[in-house]
């Protein structure tokens, strides 16, 4: 079944004179010297030369060397790898949508603007907040945008001395990275023994220098902060803002809303919660929702409705400006819109109920064999630890992850969050069946009984095994030559 057209590089397949794409002859009159000689290259770039069938075989064979949602259970914690409905792909290709120029005038874009306007409203409603910018291209950019908004808000109030952003130690690395990029210093807040925010530590670090507290709720351990209302009150009393990292919205749709538990702003990962295909690493889409008092600072443009007409509103004098060119990652917003319309209010709530049910079921199946440090119950995901296995049997989280691949399961997220040793972060999502969860649990329980030396060499069935990452970083080869 295997052939070399997948493992051979395009450049190794190249033969001078071969070609895939042909163009028509030029039908306008020939004119010489349209470009100054000094600007012209002597020859076109040395791209590979391949024929169509070779190109198609090459990339098609490459695709078979991936695991994907369409081929494998993909319980990658924190990434919400749920099913990506096929109807979205067909509808995204509709003429009038796929071929609409980003700078087309508003009258030529009324259908698109209506969709985006309604998407702003849906996301506001789901978050319990007032205004939405769809512009950020990914969750990390949404976070950054929200911090830009916070900085502009404090500057506008003459309160620009607030330079600190508080971030729990269980947070995603993007939180402190975004804080730095927005000109803030991040201060780490400890987790307590239950895996929740240590309120005493938070109190001791909260003062008039605090601009924003960034909290992920449910947090990265899959736990809901029961004291969230008290936490947000404390922050507000100190004059600070609360930012909700919306990474885990899949657990709370229609159950609770960030605006209702005191968040002032949040981002969404539309590609996660509302199922944009992850594209082997992107695109995402990271809209932000904010309270009314922060709305003036949102990036421009927003979509507004006047009578029956929709238009882009650029007239936003206090706006932070732009974080990307053009409107946003519309293709992902579009799929998210289709998803929300397909599910409706009951369907959205059902997502969270089933995501939480599936996660708890899996947790119940494995917790007696594989340690889960933070409790008996979880929201949409949980974090197991291989720490005991490591000390007793020399089996690491990575060994389990790699061996799962042999069973046809994508690995959970490993070594995150940092607060759990030998972490395996498991998020089954709501679109999986009980049978799949049973099979995954059975594989996991079988693996931890296997011989450590065998596991350390896993996977055994995937063509390659354990790339030398140290060599890759020490002697970087980043291109073919």
């Amino acid at each position, binding site marked *: 079944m295997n052939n070399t057209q997948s493992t051979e590089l395009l450049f190794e397949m190249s033969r001078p004179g071969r070609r895939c794409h042909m163009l028509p002859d030029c039908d306008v009159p020939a004119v010489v010297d349209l470009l100054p000689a000094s600007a012209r290259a002597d020859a076109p770039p040395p791209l590979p030369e391949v024929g169509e069938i070779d190109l198609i075989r090459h990339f098609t064979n490459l695709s078979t060397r991936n695991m994907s949602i369409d081929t494998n259970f993909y319980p990658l914690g924190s990434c919400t790898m749920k099913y990506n409905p096929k109807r979205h792909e067909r509808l995204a290709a509709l003429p009038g949508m796929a071929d609409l120029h980003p700078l087309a005038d508003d009258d030529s874009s009324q259908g698109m603007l209506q969709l985006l306007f309604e998407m702003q409203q849906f996301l506001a409603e789901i978050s319990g907040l007032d205004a939405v910018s769809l512009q950020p291209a990914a969750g990390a950019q949404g976070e950054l945008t929200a911090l830009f908004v916070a900085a502009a808000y404090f500057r506008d109030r003459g309160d620009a001395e607030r330079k600190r952003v508080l971030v729990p130690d269980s947070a995603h690395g993007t939180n*402190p990275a975004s804080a730095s990029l927005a000109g803030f210093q991040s201060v780490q807040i400890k987790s307590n023994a239950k895996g929740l925010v240590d309120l005493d530590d938070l109190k001791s670090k909260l003062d008039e220098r605090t601009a924003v507290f960034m909290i992920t709720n449910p947090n990265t351990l899959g736990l809901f902060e029961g004291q969230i209302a008290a936490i947000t009150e404390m922050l507000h009393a100190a004059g600070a803002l609360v930012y909700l990292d919306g990474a885990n919205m899949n657990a709370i749709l229609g159950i609770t809303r960030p605006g209702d538990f005191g968040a002032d702003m949040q981002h969404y990962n539309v590609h996660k919660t509302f199922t944009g295909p992850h594209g082997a690493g992107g695109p995402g889409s990271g809209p932000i929702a904010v309270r009314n008092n922060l709305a003036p600072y949102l990036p421009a443009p927003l979509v507004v409705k006047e009578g029956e007409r929709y238009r882009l509103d650029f007239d936003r004098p206090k706006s932070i400006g732009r974080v990307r060119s053009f409107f946003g990652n519309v293709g992902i917003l579009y799929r998210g819109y289709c998803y929300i319309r397909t599910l409706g209010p009951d369907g959205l709530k059902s997502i969270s109920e089933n995501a939480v049910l599936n996660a708890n079921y899996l947790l119940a199946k494995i917790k007696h064999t594989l340690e889960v440090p933070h409790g008996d119950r979880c929201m949409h995901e949980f974090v197991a630890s291989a720490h005991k296995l490591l000390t007793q049997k020399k089996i690491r989280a990575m060994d389990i992850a790699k061996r799962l691949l042999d069973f046809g399961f994508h690995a959970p997220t490993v070594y995150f969050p940092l607060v759990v040793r030998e972490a395996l972060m498991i998020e089954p999502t709501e679109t999986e069946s009980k049978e799949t969860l049973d099979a995954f649990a059975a594989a996991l329980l079988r693996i931890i009984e296997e011989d450590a030396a065998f596991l350390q060499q896993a996977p055994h069935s995937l063509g390659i095994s354990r790339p030398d990452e140290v060599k890759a970083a020490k002697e970087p080869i980043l291109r073919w030559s």
Partner: protein
Amino acid sequence: MSDAYILNTLGDRKQMLAKIGAASVDELFAMVPASVRLKRPLNIPPALSEMELSQHMRSLAARNRGAGDRICFLGGGAYDHFIPSVVDAIAGRSEFYTAYTPYQAEASQGSLQAFFEYQTLICQLTGMDVANASLYEGGSSVAEAVLMAVNITGRKGKVLISESVHPEYRQVLATYLANLHVELITLPTPNGFLDPDDIKRAVDDQTACVVVQHPNFFGGLEEVESLAAIAHARKSLFVVSFDPISLGLLKRPGQYEADIAVAEGQNLGTPLGYGGPYLGVLACRKEFVRQIPGRIVGQTVDRNGQRCWALTLQTREQHIRREKATSNICTNQGLFALRAAVYLSALGPQGLKQTAELCLRNAHYAAAELVKVSGVELRFQRPFFKEFVVRLNADVSRLLTKVRTAGFDAGLALGRWYGNLNDSLLVAVTEKRTRGEIDELAAAVGKALASGK
């Protein structure tokens, strides 16, 4: 119907709850205090079946006028280029589009190898040493390149950017720099290009970088070789935003000594799609490799010595470095990097050159035909590639409306970005435009101008 994608039956739920030891699904949410629960259904429209959804989306799409409806001369950073069917065929493989970031290399060799090939293709295209596995889009790529330059040079004094760089890219950069105490100075370009003498006066020992676009926002060529030399004389970096298609004909950024080259990669096989997702291209000199933002794929060997690929140089990244990371970016635009890789390899050197030549010749023919119309003249006397600016002796937005009814999107009114160009129109002409379409555009513009008097 509302449970469209849920597989758990009532029976399953019962068994699962029994295993968990919970009486109800609601009990699983005990961690969420009653005081913060939502006590009503979300206020969003009721569920739709696939058939109803399809009808609804078609009705929305019918209210738009895309490039399939009107002959498209709109550009300004997004272009109606032809997309060979092989691009959609490969990007439509769900093994690619439903995978995620290749954290587990063994289960992601397909994507990893495709990204390694993408990185190589971008190096071949630009003549630069290294490329990352892509960023969001053209505008934030300029901002990331400037942040890189500030880090590399250690100069926090100022950044110089030409007014002929895409106005939205400049807005993005201003937003990114607003909280970092780096002064952003925009150099005016009244003649449609950056005068090297202006940059010579402005650049100093505190200048982190000089940013230009070539061909620039007006479609015109910049004096990139002189500009690079001026920047380098003060040990500033030279950052260029380029049009990938133009490199079928123009000198490559590596040939004119660019330090960091970025681009909007939409024109490498991505549909217009109202602005995104697109593709941010970033390539640079090899000595800057550890300052590059975003994902990078490297070649290595596995435990059996077999060649393979993995994400690499991750110590730059946020999940390890947290607040000290080179950027907060934690994704690339994988699917669009794949599209670009297929597009570039489908075209090859000759296809890219021919595409660029068609753009060049069509655009010059369009400019020649348009200026034959009374009331239309070229705004700038600069060599250009596939876009050019014309001045009209009539109200630009009224003219555009009239020409739209004749079936053409004639171009972009520049007044929204440039106060001095209220009377001007930016016209883009790709390889897809035919002589017949260009002739009809010129006739429609002529008719509209004549009727306006």
